[in-house]
């Protein structure tokens, strides 16, 4: 969406400048500066792209090197050892980490959406005493480092509910909203005109039905963005699994397991990079499927209040 706007601006711009061009000296000079600018911008862009892309390339190249070559300073593999990826995949535990991460991220995202949507709707639409205070509390908890409350939280889950060694202490709280998701959804719901809901209510629709039937279909892009963010948050989370799951390898996630993988193979970078690649891959693949939702989601994060 944003891109097409840029393109439109460009087209407009080139029309404005193209019209008066005759082959005068000034016109030629203007055209030359334009060409130079094009070259300058694109060489800068290529240089920047190298900075962003080369790390992936080096990780990949090392991941398929032989054990001996990975101990050298070589940049390019002499022979391609695709079996490294297989070795990592078949490492005991890797599939368990994968499964655990998927459960954590999938269940966590579903629970977050279910619990956060009505709250975000109430904060965006209903008038009640203390609403601003509630919103401030949401923003504060969103900005709060998780380490602030971790000590009592751990004692609560471990000593009172005996759930340490599982991922439940990370999943269950999401059934009671996630501050960032509430905030993001609320920001979007504010932009939906009230009239739709009012019209539905005149037709005798209750608040909850109006939310489900009228508002949710209109909020699809925001819901998609929140779902993606939450999924990625869980997928990437390292601190949570470190606190609650580290004592039980059967509950490890990819992020936590990846680190232990490095511990077990610390002389060899090739297998570690192969494991890193296998953790990176699903994220990259998901991005290509949902690029638009992501980029719209980021712009939603607060700038356009």
């Amino acid at each position: 969406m944003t891109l097409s706007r840029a393109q439109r601006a460009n087209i407009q711009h080139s029309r404005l400048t193209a019209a008066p061009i005759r082959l005068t000296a000034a016109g030629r000079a203007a055209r030359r500066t334009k060409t130079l600018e094009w070259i300058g911008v694109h060489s800068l862009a290529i240089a920047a792209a190298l900075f962003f892309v080369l790390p992936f390339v080096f990780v990949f190249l090392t991941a398929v090197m032989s054990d001996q070559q990975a101990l050298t300073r070589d940049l390019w593999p002499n022979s391609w050892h695709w079996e490294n990826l297989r070795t990592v995949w078949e490492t005991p535990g890797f599939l368990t980490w994968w499964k655990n991460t998927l459960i954590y991220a999938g269940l966590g995202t579903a629970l977050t959406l279910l619990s956060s949507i009505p709250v975000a709707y109430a904060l965006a639409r209903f008038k009640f005493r203390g609403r601003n205070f509630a919103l401030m509390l949401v923003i504060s908890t969103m900005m709060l480092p998780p380490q602030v409350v971790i000590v009592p939280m751990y004692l609560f889950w471990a000593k009172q509910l005996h759930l340490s060694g599982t991922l439940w202490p990370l999943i269950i709280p999401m059934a009671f909203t996630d501050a960032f998701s509430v905030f993001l959804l609320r920001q979007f719901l504010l932009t939906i005109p009230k009239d739709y809901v009012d019209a539905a209510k005149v037709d005798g629709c209750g608040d909850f039905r109006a939310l489900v039937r009228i508002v949710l279909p209109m909020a699809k892009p925001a819901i998609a963005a929140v779902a993606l963010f939450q999924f990625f948050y869980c997928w990437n989370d390292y601190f949570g699994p470190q606190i609650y799951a580290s004592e039980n390898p059967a509950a490890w996630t990819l992020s936590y397991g990846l680190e232990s993988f490095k511990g077990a193979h610390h002389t060899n970078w090739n297998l570690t990079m192969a494991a890193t690649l296998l953790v990176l891959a699903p994220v990259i693949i998901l991005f290509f499927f949902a690029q638009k939702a992501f980029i719209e989601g980021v712009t939603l994060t607060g700038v356009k209040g």
Partner: protein
Amino acid sequence: MTSTATIPTGRRRTIDPGLRRKRRREALRNLAFLSPWLIGVSVFFLYPLISTVYFSFMRYDGFTAPTWTGLKNWQYVFTDYPFFWPALRNTLWLVVVMVTLRVIFGLGIGLLITKVKTGAGLFRTAFYLPYLAPPVAATMAFAFLLNPGTGPVNNILARIGLPQPGWFNDPAWSKPALTMLALWGIGDLMVIFMASLLDVPQEQYEAASLDGAGPWQRFRYVTLPNISPIVLFAVVTGVIQTMQYYTQPLVAGKVASGVIGGSGQQFEPGYPDKSTLTLPQLVYHLGFQRFDTGGACVIALVLFALAMVFTALLMRRGSGFLATND
């Protein structure tokens, strides 16, 4: 806020029962919609916060019953705990250098992407992708890229005859290395800046050009004033993120030191030479490695205070944050 507040108390009795019933129904509805959050914020925020304050005055190792120690934990953290001040200094360094560079770089990349005409989609994807890399995987990748033994970066530096720093193994270079990692994941800022740059009214640029403004002047007098709220937003959220900086410095230290995962081997955060310590790591170190619950809670409260100061800043200036449309 609600209309009840404005009705004089003397006339309250005359509100007809129908209206009152409607109000009660609305209150119940609000409660129903908000209940997941009310439970969540009480159980997972307010209760543990109060509990953290309580434990900060107690001696508790997680096994024997807690005992009252007054201000001893506070005194220990501020005067005797050798990690506290280095962690605070590192945080300051990261705020000054990393946050500033991230904002400048993010703005630069955002500007660049709005100027690119050929292959814009491809460039945008390339610039954005690293942001999505899971922090552990990204840190692992950079620990490899920058490792002094076989890392490609030092390999290339050697080939072109430049000095080769020890990066994550050298206390003077570990934070610059973390900064590079943070710049690599600039995607979020890039998108935010890109969106705000496209929102700058085109007429203002044209008017400035007619007045004879060059590219720098156009940037200084048209672009910057238009996007300054976003710059501020990026700075403040950057500072808050720095307060939460945990995974990258911890994993980088673990990988570079070679002490990870092994049974019985415990990694003391901060490698090399306390240069990667941050406050969240201290909560983990004291609370979960040293079993000093009280000390961990003191650090947690310091962290809480710092985070809240900057959040308040964000809410005060960011009226957009709290805006409503009724």
